């Protein structure tokens, strides 16, 4: 399954080489018009019949959450920092793969029976955690790991439950998978597919890609934290798995073009596709108009609900995958 292949690939923010190659190879099976820009974004042009029609860019970030090695501890363990926003309390005891050689490591924390009461209650800091690769000294560790090596979670993808999938990096490999399937079709419109870098760090790649393409419309295809769970107050239950994609008017201060948002929503209504309308987008990277270095561009976002998005393993529904794919395919076919 395409999503499985993409989810198991390695590509944390800033180090997207492996996922970029996998996406390029996938693209070469059906198109030649593939370009890589200076930042590492992969740009595909799917030219419709009419070259003068408005340019529409659909963008999906390739990178996943990861860690970066910052220093060696004397006891042979490693200190680290994060690439992209991470749920700190979920890190201890997770297994990771470090660097291109995929060295196995385990994230450790000061043992609970050695913590005093105040330590047990307060939040963990990155200084309290380390990655253990089984080395017993700094020198032994230095031979295997270099400073600045990246690390990703060691999880594999699998299907489970009622049409659900779990795996690492569903944010945003699920968006990349949908975008790849979209690009396989032929449309009349002037379509650019962009797989951009550093999406989890404030969506950096999308602005440089837009500068080159100068699209008239940008649709950001990303994931959003799903709000199902016990004890969530009604007004915060903005989206849940199997509730369909979220097509919001705004994400906090990032305000989208109302006409584009309404036309996507109308398409969903016409096709009987269920969707959600608003989200709480605190601390999420957003596509911001004031960073776009082009004039006259209309933006919108289609977001796929993803449970435990900030953790090492997250859950998505294949129903949401299918309905988002169908919706955007029809939307593009109409343009």
């Amino acid at each position: 399954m395409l999503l499985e292949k993409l989810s198991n690939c390695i590509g944390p923010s800033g180090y997207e080489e492996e996922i970029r190659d996998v996406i390029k190879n996938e693209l070469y099976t059906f198109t030649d018009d593939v370009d890589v820009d200076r930042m590492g974004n992969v740009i595909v042009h799917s030219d419709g019949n009419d070259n003068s029609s408005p340019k529409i860019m659909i963008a999906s970030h390739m990178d996943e959450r990861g860690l970066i090695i910052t220093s060696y501890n004397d006891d042979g363990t490693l200190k680290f920092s994060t690439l992209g926003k991470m749920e700190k309390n979920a890190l201890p005891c997770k297994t990771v793969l470090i660097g291109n050689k995929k060295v196995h490591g385990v994230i450790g924390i000061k043992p609970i029976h050695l913590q005093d009461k105040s330590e047990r209650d307060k939040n963990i800091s990155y200084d309290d955690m380390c990655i253990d690769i089984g080395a017993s000294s700094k020198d032994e560790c230095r031979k295997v790991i270099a400073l600045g090596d990246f690390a990703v979670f060691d999880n594999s993808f699998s299907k489970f439950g009622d049409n659900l999938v779990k795996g690492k990096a569903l944010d945003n490999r699920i968006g990349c998978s949908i975008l790849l399937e979209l690009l396989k079709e032929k449309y009349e419109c002037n379509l650019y597919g962009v797989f951009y870098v550093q999406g989890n760090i404030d969506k950096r790649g999308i602005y440089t890609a837009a500068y080159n393409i100068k699209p008239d419309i940008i649709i950001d295809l990303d994931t959003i934290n799903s709000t199902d769970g016990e004890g969530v107050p009604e007004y915060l239950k903005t989206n849940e798995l199997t509730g369909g994609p979220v097509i919001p008017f705004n994400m906090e201060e990032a305000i989208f073009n109302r006409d584009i948002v309404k036309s996507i929503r109308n398409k969903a209504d016409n096709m009987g596709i269920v969707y959600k309308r608003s989200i709480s987008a605190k601390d999420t990277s957003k596509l911001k108009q004031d960073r776009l270095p082009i004039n006259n561009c209309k933006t919108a976002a289609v977001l796929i609900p993803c449970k435990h998005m900030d953790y090492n393993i997250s859950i998505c529904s294949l129903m949401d995958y299918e309905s988002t794919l169908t919706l955007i395919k029809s939307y593009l076919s109409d343009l």
Partner: protein
Amino acid sequence: MDKLLIKLMNSFGISGKEDEVREVIKERLNEINQDMQEDDIGNVIVKLGSGETKIMLCTHMDSVGFIVNHIDDDGMIRVSNIGNFKKEDISHSFIRFDNGTLGKIYTSVEGEFVDIGVNEKEDALKKVSEGDMASLVGPYLSVGDNNVISPLLHNKVGCYILLKLIEYVKVENVELDFVFASQGEIGGIGARIAANNINPDYCIIVGTENATNADKRKNNINIDGGPVLKIMDSSLIMHKDIKDILENCAKLSGINLQYSISTGRSEGELVHKERIGIRTGEIAVPCRYKYSASEMVSINDIEDTIKVLKQLENFKETT
């Protein structure tokens, strides 16, 4: 008080939905037989005169407001802010939605709620839906010696100043581009795009600046003290050339200026970094209680700002 200013104050214009205030501006320009252009992002642009030098005079049409997030079962409408302001400052003020529905807003630890006087979610949904925009609304009061109190004086005052300038200025050998920009309160988006298209030699932003009131006694900006040159704020340091130009204009018109260093932000933030850089600065009308439910300005300061900027009609490069 001038009917034009009242009309501007009463028109709905929130970042992203400036239709009503844009119509008022266009209607006024039609009344004085003035050509205008509107670009794709919704900026209204008027070009007067021609010459070697291009000066862009820019102000934003939109004001801060609210967008509906969710409607609770008891009919209370949850909103969140559009633009940057303190929710305590607007609590318990009157609210108008873009479709005309009226209500009031109150803020609490639970969030910001607009109450339109219904008790059930279904009744609320008949009037308002998720994604609708809402704005402060209220009567205006004429107080003191030619002062006015009203919500949203920022930035209807800026639009008023540019409209009056367009009507009265007689431009000689310089090109003046007046821009009524959209989406100013969320980062100066329209202004940046206008500056990119026009590519002016100088850009003067017209806005408002916080004036002293009971708890801001130290900042030395007074209403009825004259127009303010914003030497520095969080987003822009005024370019020396702009300072010289505006001080010269003030001298020619015999008007005293005030100077401010503050922590505000304006469209200047993006405009001065646009293209290879644009010499930018802001002149502002002093305003008490900015971004609150009732702001106060002096009409004298508005008129003085117009007089100062009118001197640009004789602009000559000094080098």
